[in-house]
């Protein structure tokens, strides 16, 4: 109402023709003025940063695009070496990209790991859409993971068998991360619940597990899995190196995620537990319908934080001789002809890691906003 009176009142006076705000206050100029040049100090900071950004961007463009060499014939890297660092030698990526992506997997069969990467990405996308959040999703996961196993191993349907030590590159990173987190997450929920259990044996066991695993670095767990564990097995019996590393990663991720989940359980109001009990729900009904949905929702940011951390931590398997994406990149530049072009390879590998981590982070932001809509103030 007050709006209305104001406009009618203003309409009476002659000079009240609605004027737009001064040019210096709106649009781009206004925004710049308000955010970047509001005072002498802020103007100075803006200019300095602008200078640095332009210099770096220009430098990168000059190095990465203008002076870069994209292709050299037959490992003749002399042209690249003559640049003396003034330009990038993307020829190393052109030559080695299939090794970096797929490691020592048989060259003629590279379509199989490539398809696996696509399947993984498809699986992530489908799982990310709320429309597919039903019981069937679990079946899809089982089916796709089985399909990935068939593709990677082969040995059936006319696909030649490929032993695990030849797997490498991006599929290894995705396998370690996906299986690692897929198995660690349920384990973490059980451990987190167990840690809050009233049964002393269960509680002690969970505390012991979490504290022991968190007490050692991942690298030493991987070492134990690869160096000590095989000595306990009878001769001739060997559990595959990749599987041992995978189990170590699952156990490690499980302990960390368990603490994150426990944080969510503790943040939940006691009234929720009491209300659930008052309804006469059993322990599992209470946990599954009332407690966990709320608790997990609360801990989305730290969960994703841990996920992203573990996605990158999988690169630690390099110390036990598994060729994940980063190790494959490092190995690609051992060949004498290509030595010294590490920056190009690391930039590329970094970009691949970034795409996955950034996608995870963006998705978690939208998920958080959507699930916590009722809490927004």
């Amino acid at each position, binding site marked *: 109402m007050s709006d209305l009176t104001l406009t009618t009142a203003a309409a009476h006076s002659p000079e009240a023709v609605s004027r737009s705000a001064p040019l210096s206050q709106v649009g781009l100029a206004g925004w710049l003025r308000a955010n970047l040049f509001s005072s002498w100090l802020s103007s100075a900071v803006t200019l300095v940063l602008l200078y640095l950004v332009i210099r770096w961007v220009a430098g990168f463009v000059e190095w990465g695009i203008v002076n870069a060499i994209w292709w050299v014939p037959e490992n003749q890297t002399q042209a690249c070496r003559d640049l003396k660092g003034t330009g990038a030698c993307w020829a190393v990526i052109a*030559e080695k990209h299939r090794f970096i992506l797929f490691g020592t997997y048989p060259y003629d069969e590279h379509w199989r790991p490539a398809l696996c990467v696509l399947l993984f990405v498809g699986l992530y996308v489908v799982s990310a859409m709320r429309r597919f959040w039903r019981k069937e999703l679990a079946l899809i996961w089982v089916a796709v993971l089985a399909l990935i196993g068939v593709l990677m191993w082969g040995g059936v349907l006319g696909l030649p068998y490929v032993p695990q*030590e030849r797997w490498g590159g991006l599929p290894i990173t995705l396998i370690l991360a996906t299986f690692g987190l897929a198995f660690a997450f349920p384990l973490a929920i059980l451990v987190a619940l167990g840690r809050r259990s009233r049964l002393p044996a269960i509680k002690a066991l969970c505390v012991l597990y979490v504290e022991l695993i968190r007490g050692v670095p991942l690298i030493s767990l991987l070492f134990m899995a690869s160096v000590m564990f095989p000595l306990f097995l009878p001769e001739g019996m060997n559990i595959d190196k990749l599987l041992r590393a995978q189990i170590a990663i699952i156990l490690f991720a499980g302990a960390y995620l368990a603490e994150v989940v426990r944080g969510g359980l503790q943040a939940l109001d006691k009234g929720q537990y009491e209300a659930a009990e008052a309804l006469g729900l059993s322990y599992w009904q209470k946990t599954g319908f009332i407690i966990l949905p709320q608790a997990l929702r609360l801990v989305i940011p730290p969960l994703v934080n841990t996920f992203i951390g573990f996605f990158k931590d999988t690169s630690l398997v390099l110390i036990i001789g598994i060729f994940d994406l980063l190790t494959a990149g490092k190995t690609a530049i051992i060949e004498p002809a290509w030595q010294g072009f590490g920056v190009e390879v690391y930039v590329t590998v970094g970009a691949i890691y970034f795409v996955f981590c950034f996608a995870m982070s963006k998705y978690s932001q939208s998920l958080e906003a959507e699930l916590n809509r009722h809490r927004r103030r």
Partner: protein
Amino acid sequence: MQPFGLLFARALGVATLGLALALPLALPVAAQAQQAPASGTSEAIRSRGTLICGVTTGLAGFAQPDSQGVWRGFDVEYCRAVAAAIFGDASKVRYVPTTAQSRFTALQSGEVDLLARNTTWTLSRDTSLGFDFAATNFYDGQGFMVKTSLGLKSAKELDGATICVQPGTTTEQNLTDWARSNRVRFTPVVIERLEEVVGAYIAGRCDAYTTDISGLASTRSAQPRPAEHTILPDVISKEPLAPLVRQGDARFADVVRWVHFLLLSAEEFGITQANVGQMANDPRPEVQRMLGRNGELGQMLGLDNAWAVNVLKATGNYGEIFQRHLAPLGIQRGQNALWNAGGLQYSPPFR
């Protein structure tokens, strides 16, 4: 907080107890693994149909996957040669990349049959780790790299020089010992990190850079103009690199050892990958015995009598392997020349 603290203390107690119980259990198991009847190694390889070969995760010239993911290098040729001797097919090898830390367990636990991974032959590894070193296939050792423009011919001419070296390794000690016994005065420039020590040498802060010769060679080949640097022929420490197997299957160790000797003898008698077919008609009795025209040498090793022909067809002789993988890095034959060319590589007779 109290229950937690109590629990934690209890957990720690249980953990310590567990470890204390597990350790003595673990040791006999480890020891057992060494003595376990590895007599099965040859049979296991045969029944599996492939040789499992432990290699490095990537070392220029010795073992590294190429752009298509195929393993290549000096050590890899030894895996291929042994597979060719056993199966007559050099492609029947599975390569397992091992790191410096995981290599010995991989061999002890039977994850690999043969470790061809530029490993220095030492007494303790030969005995207490329970391995058999087959034969030294590469004599490495500490050497010096200088700028070609200095025109040096020998390390003894380095009197008064500044020498770049990494600290904390035997490298530094070897350098001091060598300088003292040869009365060479030098100023050390000690730098911890590899890139920095190489950078200091390139920038001219020192006249020479010292480390193992194979390392010098790969550093040299990574430079924009490798010809500007020369690796001096002097070697001042012993690093005999040898392929090794588990103790217990002497027959398999023999096979690996004699494959190496075969490669040496083939070079000595001028048998190459290209001419091994015609060489079967060579009148020299040792060549006839070696290539299986005469006698039963192959069967004595438990192999097919054509083993030598298969190996040489697959890999060529020692000189050819060296030429293919190590010469491009600028590694000279030096101590790895045949005994009759002034080197240490010497094969017992094929008789």
